[in-house]
């Protein structure tokens, strides 16, 4: 599975290629992009910082949980083998300009319901517990660290 923290631009095609299987009829790509505004302020750039070694371990944990979500319409049990969803997640660090992607999540699954649920699970858990920090730079030269989520010990209570 492709699960990494990178300083390079995110390549959406590489993410989709990484998840495609002949068993999978649904493929989804989610991109989180840098916006030019937040809380009424004009954002000109964003800097992301990660505890990279831990973040990659947490991404593996989240991905493992996501592909084991019970599949609706499949008797409520997780799919396995060739029918298990496949995922790829890349989070970028460093200085990003407005419009650039900070995170890319690709999911493929046999059917769309599963793909949407897996993708949604991954982004919500990333927001909740991936050790990454975000600093915004505003028009006028000010900078601030964004308030965030407080992960709990053990990390995966969800």
């Amino acid at each position, binding site marked *: 599975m492709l699960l990494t923290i990178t300083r390079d631009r995110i390549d959406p095609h590489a993410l989709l290629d990484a998840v495609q299987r002949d068993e999978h009829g649904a493929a989804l790509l989610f991109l*989180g992009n840098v916006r030019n505004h937040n809380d009424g302020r004009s954002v000109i750039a964003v800097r*992301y*910082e*990660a*505890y990279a*070694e*831990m*973040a990659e*371990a947490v991404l593996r944990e989240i991905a493992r949980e996501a592909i084991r979500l019970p599949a609706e319409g499949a008797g409520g049990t997780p799919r396995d083998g060739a029918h298990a969803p496949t995922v790829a997640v890349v*989070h970028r660090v460093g200085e990003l300009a407005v419009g650039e992607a*900070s*995170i890319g999540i690709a999911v493929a699954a046999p059917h769309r319901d599963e793909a949407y649920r897996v993708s949604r699970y991954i*982004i919500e858990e*990333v*927001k*909740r*517990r*991936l*050790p*990454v*920090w*975000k*600093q915004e730079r505003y028009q006028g030269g000010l900078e601030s*660290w*964004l*308030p*965030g*989520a*407080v*992960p*709990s*010990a*053990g*990390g995966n209570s969800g």
Partner: protein
Amino acid sequence: MLIRVLLFGAYREWAGAGELGLDVPEGITVADLTETLRARIHGLDRLPARPVVAVNRAYSDSAKVLLEDDEVALLPPVAGG
């Protein structure tokens, strides 16, 4: 014993360093260590009473006892995505 402490985001800026080596007594807990950092490291007196801590790259609770050469990281609230 020697403990390696990593700091990120705002905590790194407050301390003026991303990494500290600290000589601490055997048997020290995560909670003891954060108290020591608040008292000893200029800038880290602003740390919350119970900051989020990872030990050896896993989220940890404050009662955990630290061992020589553990990698301890102080993590501000996370804001990825």
